[in-house]
């Protein structure tokens, strides 16, 4: 499930271009990063509605603007070249032209007509794309923004996860967006435009994916220190695969043999004040639900990949991946950290 979206036209050429530019700008770009390539959250590469409809609308606007650009820039360039002062011009001033009502009328009316047409198209698109009620048969998801992670609740299924959204292909997902603290903005460029998560306010958005794969996005409204590390991943599955994933998420956490020590530390320290592990402790609400932690590919809202080594780093010193993160260092010794990491790494 970790492959990127299957269609990435132009990625290869893009990569070559990168290499050339990297060569030119060698001083800036580290050698390792030249090869790194994951899914690019480009709005030109939509895999869902409404992103596709927005792109089509956007390209229409771009077309209109491109025509205007060519006309006006052409007029400007021709004017500058043709009427630049030359050596033999002499002292006489050119003929003074004070204005022309006909011309003024023309270049007032023409833009007004363009604005009317664009305005009508825009109004139509807004009406078509902005939905405040859930369509019949849609998948309800409740998204809550926190500093600096995403709480994702599937109310129909009765479980909560974090930072990685799973959606079935071909079915409308209807998202309710709220915030626990400050304003965030939910943005997955390949799926939909962004919508803000605002405290005391319920916003909505909808997504209808039409392609299986993984896309990325992130918080798009400045929300404090770690705004940059409030990343999102979305996995789009076939319907059956999605149902299987959801059924797995509904289960309570199991404790594998050999992880009881870590579980005890987890359950008996402040960890449980913020984190829920269903079947162990369900009071924590300030941090992500960890019941099926290892079903997620990243840690700390995308700041690091999710494996035992990173878990140890993260629990021991959250500032390492994410300086300023709200999770405190728990002052455990390294053996305890390893035990907790072992336990968490068993939560599949």
């Amino acid at each position, binding site marked *: 499930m970790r492959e990127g979206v299957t269609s990435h036209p132009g990625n290869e050429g*893009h990569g070559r271009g*990168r290499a050339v*530019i990297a060569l030119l*700008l060698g001083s*800036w*770009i580290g050698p390792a*990063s030249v090869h*790194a390539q994951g899914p690019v959250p480009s*709005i*030109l590469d939509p895999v869902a509605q*409404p992103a596709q409809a*927005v792109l089509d*609308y956007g390209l229409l*606007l771009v077309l209109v603007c491109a025509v205007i*650009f060519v006309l*006006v*820039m052409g*007029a*400007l360039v021709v004017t*500058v070249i043709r*009427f*630049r002062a*030359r050596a033999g011009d002499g002292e006489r*001033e*050119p003929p*003074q*032209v*004070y*204005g*022309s009502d006909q*011309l*003024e009328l023309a270049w*007032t009316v023409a*833009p007004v007509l363009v*604005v009317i047409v664009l*305005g009508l198209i*825009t*109004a139509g698109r*807004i*009406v078509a794309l902005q939905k*405040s009620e859930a369509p019949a048969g849609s998948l309800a998801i409740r998204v809550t923004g926190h500093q600096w992670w995403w709480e994702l609740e599937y109310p129909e299924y009765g479980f909560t996860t974090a930072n990685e959204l799973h959606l079935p292909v071909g079915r409308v997902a209807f998202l309710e967006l709220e915030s626990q603290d*400050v304003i965030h903005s939910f943005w997955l*460029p390949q799926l*939909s435009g*962004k*919508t803000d998560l*605002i*405290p*005391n*306010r319920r*916003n*909505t958005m909808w997504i209808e994916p039409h392609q299986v794969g993984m896309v990325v*996005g*992130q918080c*798009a*409204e*400045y929300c404090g220190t*770690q*705004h940059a590390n409030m990343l999102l991943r979305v996995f789009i599955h076939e319907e059956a695969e999605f149902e299987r994933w959801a059924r797995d998420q509904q289960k309570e956490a199991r404790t594998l043999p050999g992880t009881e020590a870590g579980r005890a530390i987890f359950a008996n320290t402040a960890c449980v004040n913020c984190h829920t592990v269903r079947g162990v402790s369900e009071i924590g609400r300030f941090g992500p639900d960890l019941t099926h932690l290892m079903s997620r590919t990243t840690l700390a809202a995308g700041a690091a990949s999710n494996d035992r080594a990173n878990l140890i780093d993260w629990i021991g010193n959250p500032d390492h991946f994410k*300086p300023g993160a709200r999770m405190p260092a728990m002052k455990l010794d390294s053996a305890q950290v390893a035990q907790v990491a072992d336990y968490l790494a068993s939560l599949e």
Partner: protein
Amino acid sequence: MSASLRTDGAREISSPERSGSVLHAWVTTVDHKKLGILYIAAGLLFFVIGGIEAIMMRAQLAQAANTLLEPQEFNRLFTMHGTTMVFLVGMPIVTGFGNYLIPLMIGARDMAFPRLNAWGFWMFLFGGLVLYMSYFASMGLYGAGTAPDVGWFAYSPLAGKAFSRGNATDYWILGILISGFGSISGAINMLTTTLTMRCPGMTMNRLPLFVWMMLVVSFLMLLALPVLTGAQVMLLFDRFLGAHFFDTQAGGDAVLWQHFFWFFGHPEVYILMIPGFAYASEIIPVFSRKVIFGYSFMVAATLAIGLVAVGVWAHHMFTVGMGQGLNIWFAVITMLVGVPTGIKLFNWIATMYGGRIQLRMPMVFCIAFLGQFLIAGLTGILLSGAPLNWQLSDSYFVVAHFHYVLIGGLVFTVFAACYYWFPKMTGRMLSEKIGRWHFWLFFIGFHLTFTTMHVQGVLGMPRRIYTYPAERGWEVWNAISSTGAILQGLGVACFFVAVIVAFRRPAQAGPDPWNAWTLEWSTSSPPPAYNFLSLPEVRSRRPLWDLKHPDDPDWEHE
């Protein structure tokens, strides 16, 4: 050249003075020209500071997952950069040129309220110093942070006490509040001067376009700045007195702050941009050797922009979840701004058409402005389409767009204005040779930095992130952007070199080095304290043209 110009108006007696008394003269001055220069100089100083902040941010973003800056340091930098550039660079430079030129252009001896004028300047300067004091003084009770890190827009509840501890945000509020009083007083002064201090013959219909546009700017300042002041007072009440205006935990509304902020913030864009139009409207005719095309339509378009400017604020808020009706309203009204703006662009090109375009530095900067502002306007149309805005808002596309407006539009015209009026202010010409270096470095750097930012935005890069993962495909573009920032810095350095070189050369610009037509060129350079000993007769919009071309004066055509 038919008539020779009167250059009387004896130069100020400049006896060798002790530096103390020179300083004393500048600190205690109420002369609009000295205050204008003080405004511009202070603005340029803050411009350098804000530019250094920008270069530091670009250095951090040049590489993916860079660790040059801490996240908090980066967040402070973009907060200070935005606040500085808007309030401590744009506003004072705009006010400075207005201060210097309005009385000279309308044939007045000074501003309407000279002492209020001085008060306004010092309020601005101390407001700016209060803001920067935060770097040293705002550790506060909690020791939480130094400079403000809530963004120049200070969205609640992030700027509230619960999420912004310590006093950094209070420095932001107070600094801007104080400098805001200065700007409001400046606006009152410019409005009153223009309406009541015009010399005989200078009817409203004959005002130079510069003065007309500054009149609209002053009106917008008076309309918009008190709104920000009011909202900041509310925030201050929230933070210090336990009020709940924007306290979401007690039912306060986070979106109300956004409405207030952008009701100020969008007119603010025009407060910064219309002066750019004003400089271009004076410079383009002179260097095309032609009268401005469609004077009345230029005035009408400016008034229309001023009017529409107050009705478009929520186009900054298409993603907050407004209803369909509001989204449609703000999208369409925003697109309408393109009409009067387009009229201006067409009139400038029509002015150049059929002229003899002299590619001196002021004109070169203005031509670049025209092209760049065209791009800014068109990306503005793209952003006004609400559905596309849902994708592009708060992305690097927006950063590209408004830097095309504020650098491509405003900064380029400010440089044009500097090259154009520097001889009037100092009696010295700025070197064209260094100017070319300045222009090309800045021009290429600007386009490297900001043209590429459109791409980052389309590739899904949000604003205000201090780091990004390598695999996003943004790094190349960011590296190009950062390289451009260095070139821009070098370009600006060339400008200061040109200024220094100019002061090492003799003052021989003369009263009218550009063979121009408005009243400020009828007095000596620099003008005497009382501006004019005698004024030419004002019978048209170009009194000096009438003087130089008695055979074909303007008033026969107006």
